[in-house]
């Protein structure tokens, strides 16, 4: 195989469509449907690795990213020694700037009654107010920065067919100390009521198993599980609940065994350059965005992809925060 130029550091230089660095998003896509995974992030053309996504903005993704960013900003300001009020003002100002389109000279417009600029700022203020005396204190790292948006990368000691090592990587939202324990907190926003049923869906759950695993291996977090820091975003209110999502050592061992199996499968798919469709997943998870593509003849799919979707690069190794 000739060496190809790849812009994505997470993929092999010897077998370009072979992903070496796996995060929970890419692993989750692979588990859902190998074809969906390939279309989302492992297309290889003209020396480039890329994927496709829908043209329409996902308001949930945008809202979630901004919510995370605002609270991360708040944590950084508190860590810098700012008072609660100053840190909150700074976080609100940050949010206001991030949701302002300076080219069009107007705010971010969302057609979602629950998730929009107003409810975003309201949620940030209400969250900070509810947890003003948060007993869970954000860990401060040795470099003096708060343990938020922590990137991790761990070797698996498992070699791909190319001889390169697979790694698992990702970003932990927050490490915090509570009653002499270090806990991983993961923030989630939802429009649904936060109840027992909401938290039940996080076991089993690929992302949380990966984070629990990484927390133990990389950061030495002893607790068997993590905390879901959930926010219900409604039209007229925001409500916050935290729940513990357990992961025993035996569950994590099982998850790891399954993960090794799945990335070995990805290796095989990359070798034969064929990613099978899981046609049982098409109508699940709100419906696959590639359903329209896969429902067409294989001969015309590429044209439809170019016409209806936009290209994007998903690189799990790109850090979102401090290491």
């Amino acid at each position, binding site marked *: 195989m000739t060496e190809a130029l790849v812009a994505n550091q997470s993929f092999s230089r010897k077998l370009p469509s072979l992903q070496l660095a796996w995060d929970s998003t890419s692993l989750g896509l692979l588990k859902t449907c190998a074809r969906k995974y390939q279309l989302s992030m492992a297309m290889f053309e003209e020396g480039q690795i890329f994927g496709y996504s829908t043209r329409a903005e996902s308001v949930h993704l945008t809202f979630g990213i901004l919510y995370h960013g605002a609270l991360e900003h708040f944590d950084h300001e508190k860590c810098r020694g700012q008072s609660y009020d100053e840190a909150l003002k700074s976080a609100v100002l940050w949010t206001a700037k991030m949701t302002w389109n300076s080219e069009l000279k107007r705010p971010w417009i969302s057609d979602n009654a629950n998730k929009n600029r107003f409810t975003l700022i309201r949620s940030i203020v209400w969250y900070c107010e509810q947890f003003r005396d948060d*007993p869970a204190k954000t860990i401060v790292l040795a470099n003096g920065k708060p343990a938020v948006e922590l990137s991790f990368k761990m070797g698996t000691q498992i070699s791909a067919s190319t001889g390169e090592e697979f790694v698992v990587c990702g970003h932990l939202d927050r490490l915090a100390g509570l*009653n*002499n324990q270090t806990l991983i907190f993961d923030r989630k926003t939802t429009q649904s009521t936060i109840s027992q049923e909401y938290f039940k869906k996080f076991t089993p759950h690929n992302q949380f198993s990966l984070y629990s695993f990484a927390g133990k291996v990389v950061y030495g977090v002893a607790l068997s599980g993590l905390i879901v820091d959930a926010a219900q975003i409604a039209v007229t209110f925001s409500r916050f609940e935290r729940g513990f999502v357990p992961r025993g050592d035996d569950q994590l061992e099982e998850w790891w065994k399954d993960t090794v199996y799945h990335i070995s499968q990805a290796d095989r798919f990359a070798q034969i350059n064929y990613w099978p469709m899981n046609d049982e997943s098409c109508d699940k998870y709100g419906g696959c965005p590639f359903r329209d593509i896969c429902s067409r003849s294989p001969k015309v799919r590429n044209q439809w992809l170019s016409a209806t979707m936009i290209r994007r690069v998903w690189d799990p190794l790109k850090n979102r925060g401090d290491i």
Partner: protein
Amino acid sequence: MPNILDHPSSTITKLGLVADSGGGKSGSLLSLASEGYNVRIIDCDNGLDCVAEILRGPNPYKPDTYTRIAYKTITERRTPRNGKLLPGANVWTDVSNMLDNFDDGKVKYGSIYRWTSQEILVVDSFSFLAKGALNWILSMNGRLGQQPHQSDYFFAQGILEDFLAALFSDHVKCNVIVMFHIQTIRKDGIDHAYPEGCGSALSPKIGRYFNNILMVRSTGSGNTAKRTLHTKNCPGLSVELKNSSPLTVKDSYPQDTGLAQYFADLRKGVPKAPVPPVAEARA
């Protein structure tokens, strides 16, 4: 294929001990320490003063009984805030940490996963531990001191079930005794009595985690009060009891010596290790 006769239940006992408050649960442990077991107590009730009082006075136990009792009292720290005394939510994490390293403040006894059939882990009592679990959940949500939501009970019940499952698992190779108070739950118009958990959903499930549920019951009062350890259901007993050797154990035992006798009866018939043959003396 493992030999069923070698099943660890013949040398390890895991039981739930139920009684009303002040019913004699803690005092019943003394017979075990007297018989040579190392009794290690996680004391969430702060109720071991009766044990000390018994040992200081005339008692039926061996003189060195006290040397085989270790304990750690773990209760919620309370701090005043806005006119309330709020719990510190430390019980749950402190108790969880004790399973990894039982430390009575003087001696570190290590992880319970390394203990043997000579050791007995005692959790006294599950009711207070359950309150600690609920406080931990409330603390996590920044609502300490407030009325718990239904989801708080759900989470507390989840972590408490995991706790019981951990003690019940075959990775724990020591004896386990968990003390329970009694909780009455009305179902279909009928009152049912269960070992007390957290809320009403957990209590009916507690029995699943034990092969032995015993009850200490007092009858009479004052100088004529008599405490009995019951192993089987009988009229007047509220909680459903069970034991792992119904053909061997008695229906009841005296409370002050009962647990040791019960342990001995459970181990009756367990084949001892074969004695190696003695070489014949040569003339």
